[in-house]
């Protein structure tokens, strides 16, 4: 009965169709897996750089776009540096999807207040695209996004187009304006002084570096968002992605299986230095 049992550690091959330079150290890889990876916004995959190893990334493309899948990746270390040598036509490996998607059904009828920082906009793009795909189901969609400098903003062109969508409200900031910049200057929380939605009835979704998540969450809690309506993408070390290897433990949770998105309510009492 060869091949009958599925091997969850085995990646499928995925060809790189395109590499888009987003910022000096962030690129979007457009991939075509040999077998479809039917992910939902919020889920992640393990990406294999052949001969090198794996790392977890969240697809940033729309869950309704099935044949290809995009990932927006920042170069930070060993595996991502190896990935950045890859060119269109070359092969990678992919397994997944893993983890729990954003509970979009629970978001229905509510305003959605999204806050992103840096490359953290990647998973939020998948969420945003899923929301606007059926925009009538939701209230207003607010997107607050901050990057270090104007050059560090990802999806520059798309952000301009998203601003035109009815029911969408976008505001941007940069920590420092090293080049001409017409919008706000300051860390992303400077966009949160006025929160235009009804905080008791809306959901907030946050993704970004730990320090940014910490301060954004603090603001959201102070503004009155209930902890169960604040959704945070937790980055823990992942090896298996399957809920087996123990690496991604965060308190009682395995981030790969119970997350990677967890609510503030779930994690607020956990004693780890993240958040």
């Amino acid at each position, binding site marked *: 009965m060869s091949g009958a049992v599925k091997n969850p550690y085995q990646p499928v091959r995925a060809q790189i169709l395109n590499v888009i330079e987003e910022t000096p150290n962030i690129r979007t890889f457009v991939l075509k897996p040999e077998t479809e990876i039917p992910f939902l916004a919020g889920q992640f995959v393990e990406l294999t750089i052949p*001969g090198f190893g794996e790392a977890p990334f969240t697809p940033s493309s729309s869950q309704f776009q099935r044949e290809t899948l995009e990932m927006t990746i920042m170069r930070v270390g060993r595996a991502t540096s190896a990935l950045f040598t890859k060119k269109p036509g070359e092969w990678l490996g992919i397994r997944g999807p893993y983890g729990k998607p954003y509970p979009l059904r629970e978001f229905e009828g509510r305003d959605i207040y999204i806050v992103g920082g840096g490359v953290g906009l990647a998973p939020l793009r998948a969420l945003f695209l899923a929301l606007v795909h059926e925009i009538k189901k939701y209230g207003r969609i607010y997107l607050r996004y901050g990057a270090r400098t104007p050059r560090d903003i990802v999806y520059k062109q798309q952000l301009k187009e998203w601003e035109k969508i009815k029911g969408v409200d976008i505001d941007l900031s940069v920590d420092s304006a090293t080049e001409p910049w017409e919008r706000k200057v300051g860390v992303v929380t400077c966009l949160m002084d006025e929160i235009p939605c009804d905080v008791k009835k809306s959901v907030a979704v946050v993704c970004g570096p730990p320090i940014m998540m910490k301060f954004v969450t603090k603001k959201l809690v102070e503004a009155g968002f209930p902890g169960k309506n604040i959704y945070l993408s937790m*980055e823990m070390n992942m090896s298996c992605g399957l809920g087996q290897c123990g690496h991604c433990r965060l308190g009682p949770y395995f981030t790969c299986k119970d997350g990677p998105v967890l609510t503030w309510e779930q994690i607020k009492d956990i004693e780890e230095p993240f958040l």
Partner: protein
Amino acid sequence: MDTYFLANARCGAWFSRLAGRFNLFYPALLEERVHWQKYVPAGFRLEQLALRQIRAAESIKPFLFSPRERVASFPEPLSPDGKDMPTLLFGLKGCDLRGIAVHKKMFLEGEFADPFYARRLANTYFIGADCPVPEPSCFCNLLGLQPFLTQEVDLSLSVLDDGWLVEVISERGRELIDGDFVPANGSQLSQRQAQRERALAVLKQQNPKEWNPNLAGAIAERTSDRKFWVDAGADCVECFGCLMTCPTCFCFLLYDQGNAERFERTKVWDFCYIPMYARVGGGANPRPTFVQRFINRFHCKFMHAKNQNGFYACSGCGRCFTTCMGRIDIRKILGQL
């Protein structure tokens, strides 16, 4: 279940018959310590079986969850299917089973079952043996286990003076019994009963202090008392020996070797005490200090395991402190909670 008797004169022949059908491993006394040995017919004598002693120095974890195993390859995928000669672990102990219970939860009961573990488990037969004389390191009784086996093995064996009592626990086990066995009589059963009660009494005597019945809750409450944990782990030299010998630890790491054209993925044991264990991209580490990692072990085994699975991820085997350079005794720490 049915219990049979096999007279001393016939034990060797039965053992040899089993050895012909399986990859057989048995506990042997080597330089005063019991170790798992692979059966080879040349020079084997039945007296080498250490059935009356306590668990082997090594746990049975490596038989089922390999310390190093190839789990994927590229571009030709690796198939988890295949047939090996079945393995027989002859003479494992009550505490040896807790590891299997934990690993089954972790590797088989989630959304993505590990087919390699499943295959090994299905292909392994278990014959348990009573511990007539527990040793000072044993505390299985405090963790809901017993120094003998009444379930979850195929056969359970008790050594009497004139032969072996063998209780059939599973249907698979029944097939291992053959014509040399006779039904056990009442006197043999009461000898076994007396022997088991003596073992329990020894355990009770050497572990007189009852623990907090809610260890999980007690650990949660103690978590912020850093002094307690710093003191408890003060003698640790971070050799990781305790985690390496522990039968219930389940952590592993996947790593790849090869080149862009072809590679292999290997699964190796990993340990939460290792400083790099939880480090994420860019260098941040949620548990940078040893005391945090030390607490993590107690959270994992005694708090999350109990809350999520209903039993502690500890067997009371005592291997961790028998191995420990710093002589850190887990019983002492648990006893203080």
